[in-house]
């Protein structure tokens, strides 16, 4: 019998490393030798007995079975069922331990196996170096990169810890007359509620940052469906005349009196009220500004912050998704939809996605959806019934609204949860909650601000999202870019569902 034992120290907290390594199907995300991997039978990745079937970068295929997994000891072991080399009776163990003086991790990877005598050294080298040490190197690179980043944190206003925070109502940013002297900024202004044509570019006054405010110079501004609701007056976050937009990335350009913890030139992003992001520069309270780590570019932050925070609270708080649950995700090729699909799959849920066209269905499949229903062609509720042997979906994430709400209720399993978090096709109307008893249904209508409106909540979601992004659990595609002046066209295309992924405005 040959024993191979390799160990290293990773410069990251043990829980972070464990989160990455415990995913038995996640090695294709970090190990350079693994090209792609899947769990047979769609079992959860942390189910004892689960078999991962994976292809090496050089083409060889292996099947390995999870034998033990302990979140207490941070260890798991597995054996080889099939491999293109004679690693007979191969059983391996991965074990992590905390290095308590410095937030580091001890990682040991060891195995025993019975090779043919003449291949003994060759196979021991293969396992120890090509598999274990290369794996160490990849994880080290992944976390080393992170260690050099500025940690995600949210800057709080000086002196606000004790005193009551100054009220920050979601007031529309005041649109002062541009004829007065002083600085100006180009902005998209809504003078009255209405269609995309109400988004007009003009110059408005930009006062110096007041006490407790910072001036932000935008580089990219995120376009979200909530901006459409603000423009049409469905939400009163914006009162005309006002500037829409709640998401952007840029740099701190100036500090008002009493602001600490931020410096001019800091890269920051935000995804929160008050509205007013569709402009070149604005003043804002720093409470909900997020420092951007190096691995998150400006367009990615502008495209992804709001969606990532949304996906975080939808999957972890509105309904804490568990491995093995069946999810139905509507509009899965959309910005939030793609994140939900990827993240839910990694949690171990079964994901059924819907999309309006074959093209969008292909995107949902590429993001990892187990099944995709093109709902313009097939009744999705019936399809869910067929795909679940009549059981229905445990959770449905529905931001389509009017067009899907009724059939979503039909597609729910008993004690299912319908999370209605948007209404791209129109308001869902009134429903008799008495009818919900037929399946003991739960309906949620989460509001973004209620899940991300405090520094504490926001930090939790941002860290979770950036961490998932860094690990490749979720990907943010390069967004479609429109110039700030063309915001109206961006809204037209968004509402006509001509776009997939995210839209940003370049400043």
């Amino acid at each position, binding site marked *: 019998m040959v024993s191979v034992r*390799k*160990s*290293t*120290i990773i410069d990251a907290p043990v829980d972070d490393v464990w989160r990455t390594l415990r995913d038995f199907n996640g090695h294709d995300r970090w190990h350079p030798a693994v090209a792609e991997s899947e769990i047979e039978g769609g079992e959860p990745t942390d189910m004892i007995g689960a078999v991962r079937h994976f292809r090496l970068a050089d083409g060889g295929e292996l099947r390995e079975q999870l034998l033990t997994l302990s979140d207490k000891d941070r260890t798991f072991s597995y054996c080889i069922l099939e491999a293109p080399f004679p690693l007979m009776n191969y059983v391996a163990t991965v074990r992590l331990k905390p*290095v*308590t*003086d*410095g937030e580091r991790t001890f990682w*040991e990877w060891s195995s025993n196996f019975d090779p043919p005598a003449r291949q003994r050294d060759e196979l021991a080298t293969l396992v120890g170096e090509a598999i274990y040490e290369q794996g160490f190197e990849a994880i080290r690179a992944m976390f080393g990169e992170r260690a050099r980043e500025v940690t995600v944190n949210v800057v709080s206003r000086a002196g606000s810890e004790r005193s009551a925070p100054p009220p920050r109502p979601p007031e529309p940013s005041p649109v002062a007359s541009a004829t007065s002297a002083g600085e100006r900024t180009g902005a998209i202004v809504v003078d009255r509620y209405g269609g995309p044509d109400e988004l007009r570019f003009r110059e408005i006054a930009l006062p110096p940052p007041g006490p407790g405010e910072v001036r932000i110079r935008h580089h990219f501004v995120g376009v979200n469906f909530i901006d459409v609701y603000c423009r049409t007056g469905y939400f009163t976050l914006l009162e005309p005349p006002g500037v829409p937009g709640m998401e952007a990335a840029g740099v701190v350009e100036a500090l008002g009196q009493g602001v600490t913890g931020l410096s001019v030139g800091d890269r920051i992003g935000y995804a929160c009220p008050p509205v007013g992001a569709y402009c070149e520069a604005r003043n804002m309270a720093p409470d909900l500004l997020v420092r951007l780590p190096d691995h998150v570019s400006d367009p990615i932050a502008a495209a992804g912050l709001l969606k990532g925070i949304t996906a975080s609270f939808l999957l972890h708080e509105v309904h804490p998704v568990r491995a093995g649950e069946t999810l139905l995700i509507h509009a899965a090729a959309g910005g939030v939809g793609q994140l939900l699909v990827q993240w839910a799959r990694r949690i171990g849920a079964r994901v059924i996605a819907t999309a309006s066209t074959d093209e969008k269905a292909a995107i949902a499949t590429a993001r990892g959806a187990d099944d995709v229903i093109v709902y313009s062609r097939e009744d999705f509720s019936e399809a869910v019934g067929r795909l679940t042997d009549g059981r229905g979906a445990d959770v449905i994430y529905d931001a389509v609204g009017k067009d899907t709400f009724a059939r979503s209720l039909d597609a729910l399993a008993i004690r299912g949860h319908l999370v209605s978090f948007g209404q791209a096709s129109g308001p869902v109307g009134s429903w008799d909650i008495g009818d919900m008893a037929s399946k003991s249904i739960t309906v949620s209508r989460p509001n973004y601000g209620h899940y991300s409106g405090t520094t504490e909540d926001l930090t939790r979601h941002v860290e979770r999202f950036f961490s998932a992004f860094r690990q490749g659990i979720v990907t943010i595609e390069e967004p479609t870019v429109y110039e700030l002046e063309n915001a109206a066209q961006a809204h037209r295309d968004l509402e006509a569902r001509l776009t997939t992924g995210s839209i940003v405005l370049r400043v």
Partner: protein
Amino acid sequence: MTKVYVSTVIGAPAPEIWRVVRDFNGLPNWTPFVAESRIEQNAHPDQIGCIRNFRLKDGGRIRERLLALSDYDLSCTYTILESPMGVEDYIATLSLTPVTDGNRTFAEWQAEFECAPERETALVEQIGNGVFKTALDALKRRFGGG
């Protein structure tokens, strides 16, 4: 049951560090807080069951019995028989594990014990920081950090 766990990385091969720490009578040689030590009844310090009787630099006296010693696992387990700390059923293990990448050593020191609830926080601090970490830090100064 209260648990204390402390670990670190030391910049030398495990066998080299093991030579120093395996001596159950050797605390004065490598920890900064033990003044003198002897093994009771003239026993060998690697005889399982032997008792070390040592005096701390602050004057306290402690008696500990060796429960296990493994030159294979590079680990040593012992229990406290008498001490001024006020702990019951105290069992501690010091172990070394080679870090193959860089020829370093992962050192762990952990203990489990019972104590009066109001003493728990202070004891965890005293044992975790005052004893284990202080001693491991001394090894790091001697052999280098990792």
